[in-house]
């Protein structure tokens, strides 16, 4: 099928962009990489009256260091930068590892990092990473700028707190806690498909590896938004990273999940998958302790 009719704007500056969005409000949609929006238009599942293409807006295509060990990524930076951009690879290699799961090379060449966050597919990798790494979203509109923590950004399936008059201009990933080892795992039927379930885990341990100093745990693809298991993270602190501790943590982190069922798997299957992946991810974090490379 073909896209429905719309008016097309290709602003060159941010001020022009937010002015167009302010004028057209609800009827307008931002067009970034188009790798989710164009399929929706082709299938006529979306019918915006106005498209605001931000690809030619100046200064949105940069990756810059942010704080100690962090990165700030502009709205038109492509997903392929996650495994190619030197600043990103150097500072947050876990993003590069995880990005290999986002669709295919051909999709990542166009799809943007911020676009995936704004689209907020519950089975997408980047929203889960943003929550796990405590990223902040910078949203701009004609009335100014808001900085939104990832924890408050995702509301539900394909829904964020962004207003129709706002554009996400940047995502800021702070430097992760020192010494934290990360692992990213997901399961899909075919390479490049959206995840049936996935997990982002981070663990730091005492120097001798005998007790857990801090933990991060986010599961995705199993609810309307990524789910951070904050209580489990807190409970892990001070415990030894033994198999039984990690297995119990995974069971607790996924106990209350009630994932939706679809043609790819039942809810119960997804929850079991999330639990298994969580154990493996936590073990991978533990095993990579003391090695130079983060877990993959």
């Amino acid at each position, binding site marked *: 099928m073909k896209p429905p009719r719309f008016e*097309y704007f290709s602003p060159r500056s941010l001020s022009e962009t937010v002015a167009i969005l302010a004028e057209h409000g609800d009827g307008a949609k931002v067009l970034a990489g188009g790798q989710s929006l164009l399929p929706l238009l082709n299938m006529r599942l979306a019918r915006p009256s106005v498209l605001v293409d931000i690809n030619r807006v100046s200064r949105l295509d940069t990756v810059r260091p942010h704080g100690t060990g962090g990165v700030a990524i502009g709205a038109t930076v492509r997903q392929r930068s996650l495994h190619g951009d030197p600043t990103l690879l150097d500072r947050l290699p876990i993003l590069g590892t995880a990005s290999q799961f986002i669709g295919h090379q051909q999709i990542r060449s166009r799809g943007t990092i911020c676009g995936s966050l704004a689209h907020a597919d519950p089975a997408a990798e980047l929203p889960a990473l943003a929550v796990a790494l405590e990223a902040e979203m910078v949203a701009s509109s004609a009335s100014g700028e808001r900085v939104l923590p990832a924890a408050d950004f995702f509301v539900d399936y394909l829904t964020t707190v962004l207003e129709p008059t706002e554009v996400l201009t940047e995502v800021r990933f702070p430097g992760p806690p020192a010494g934290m080892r990360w692992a990213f795992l997901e399961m899909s039927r075919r390479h490049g498909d959206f995840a049936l379930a996935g997990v982002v885990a981070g663990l730091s341990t005492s120097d001798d590896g005998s007790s857990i100093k801090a933990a991060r745990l986010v599961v995705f693809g199993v609810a309307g938004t990524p789910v951070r298991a904050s209580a489990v993270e807190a409970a892990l602190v001070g415990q030894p990273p033994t198999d039984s501790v990690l297995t119990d943590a995974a069971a607790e982190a996924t106990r209350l999940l009630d994932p939706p069922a679809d043609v790819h798997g039942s809810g119960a299957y997804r929850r079991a998958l999330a639990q298994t992946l969580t154990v493996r991810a936590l073990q991978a974090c533990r095993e990579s302790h003391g090695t130079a490379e983060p877990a993959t």
Partner: protein
Amino acid sequence: MAVRQTVRVRVNGLERVAETDVRRTLVDFLREDLGLTGTHVGCEHGVCGACTVLMGGQAVRACIMLAVQADGAELLTVEGLASPDGTLHPIQEAFREKHGLQCGFCTPGILMTTCELLASTPSPSTEEIKDWLSGHLCRCTGYQQIIESIQLAATRMASDQMVLSAQ
């Protein structure tokens, strides 16, 4: 804002200009407005890879991009692979020899992805080839011959490169 716009692109080395609907996808622009029907349209939602072309050297889906977004871009489509005298590109030659195609519907897209793959990774591992091919569906070949075609093309192009640099 108009619903039609002039789009200027360089396709296969030639400057092309046409007025088109702003809602026209790039693949329809290539096929309908420029008459370049070598690029195929399958699923129209980014999944099958039939419409893949190179934009600025990168393999992208022409079905989920608007033609107006390609304004000013450098494009390469399957028509640009063979020489003007009809001599096949080494990648095409390898696909022919190794039976990398049957019906040929998926082939133009796979050839374009192979172009970027071999330009960025001249000697890809089988795993790397499979990773790039994951963005393409082929209902005929079972993929094995496609992988072999790409391996053959890589070997030939690498040795051509050595001959060139020795000269």
